[in-house]
């Protein structure tokens, strides 16, 4: 069956590096397609794709901006943002809102009483 013709052509993948050093390990995997040796080989298999994918990474220069931000500047911006916010948040509630809520409440009460 496939045992006869499979072995030589099937070995193309490991051929570029490990084959000549470990022919005994490379061969059984191609022929048997399973079992313990095959999984062992799978783990040991040199990662061929790594080199290619590394070349495709975008240039690191693209991600400059926020790495460049000065930490103390950021702290200062944060303090100012909170100061602007709390300036208003600490003011007493203006009368117009107290009146508004009282009116809403009164209207609701009148409607309920009917």
């Amino acid at each position, binding site marked *: 069956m496939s045992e006869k013709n499979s072995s030589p052509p099937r070995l193309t993948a490991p051929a570029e590096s490990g084959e000549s050093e470990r022919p005994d390990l490379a061969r059984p995997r191609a022929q048997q397609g399973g079992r313990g040796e095959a999984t062992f080989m799978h783990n040991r298999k040199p990662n061929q794709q790594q080199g290619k994918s590394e070349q495709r990474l975008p240039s690191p220069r693209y991600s*400059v*901006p*926020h790495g*460049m*931000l*000065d930490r103390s*500047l*950021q702290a*200062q*911006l*944060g303090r*100012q*943002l*909170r*100061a*602007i*916010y*709390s*300036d*208003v*948040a*600490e*003011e*007493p*509630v*203006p009368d*117009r*809102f*107290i009146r*508004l*809520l*009282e009116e*809403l*409440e*009164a209207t*609701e*009460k009148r409607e*309920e009483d009917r």
Partner: protein
Amino acid sequence: MSSGSNIASQPLKQSLLGLIPNLRAFAVSLCGDIERADDLVQETLLKAWNHLDSFQEGTNLRAWLFTILRNTYFSECRRRRREVEDHDGTKAAELAVHPAQQGHIDMQDFRRALNVLPPDQREALVLVGAAGFSYEEAASISGCAVGTIKSRVNRARARLSALLGVVTAHEFGPDSATEAIVARTVGVRGAT
């Protein structure tokens, strides 16, 4: 204040009253104008009161009110988009006229810079950086993904730094020049 106490709505009224300072602070940071902010707060309170049935008891009342307020603000922005853009342009121009001193950011400059940010970035920055919401809460208030909030906050911070022009040349080398140019360009574009 002497008010007839309605037992049913008293706790809600109290909760609303207690949250008004926060709502005003959020509104001011969004629109940069206290009078407009108070109008937003008023509209928010009215909407909240009239749609109380859509509020789920036990959930975060503050987040719910913030959501109403920001939705009101953004739909208003869409209505008066032209006016708002003009407004921002003027502010950007002023900013270019008064560059910040090195190492110190004047509060007025900071306010102007904040108002030059795109509204969605300003909102994200204020929710997370001042109002104390988590990224998740901010995302649900703004109706967007958590990642979107994070990137808005990052862009807002980067933009503020660039606008305020306080990046020090000796620390950052040629890139500080780039950021200064960005800040200038924004000003110039706004002025034309």
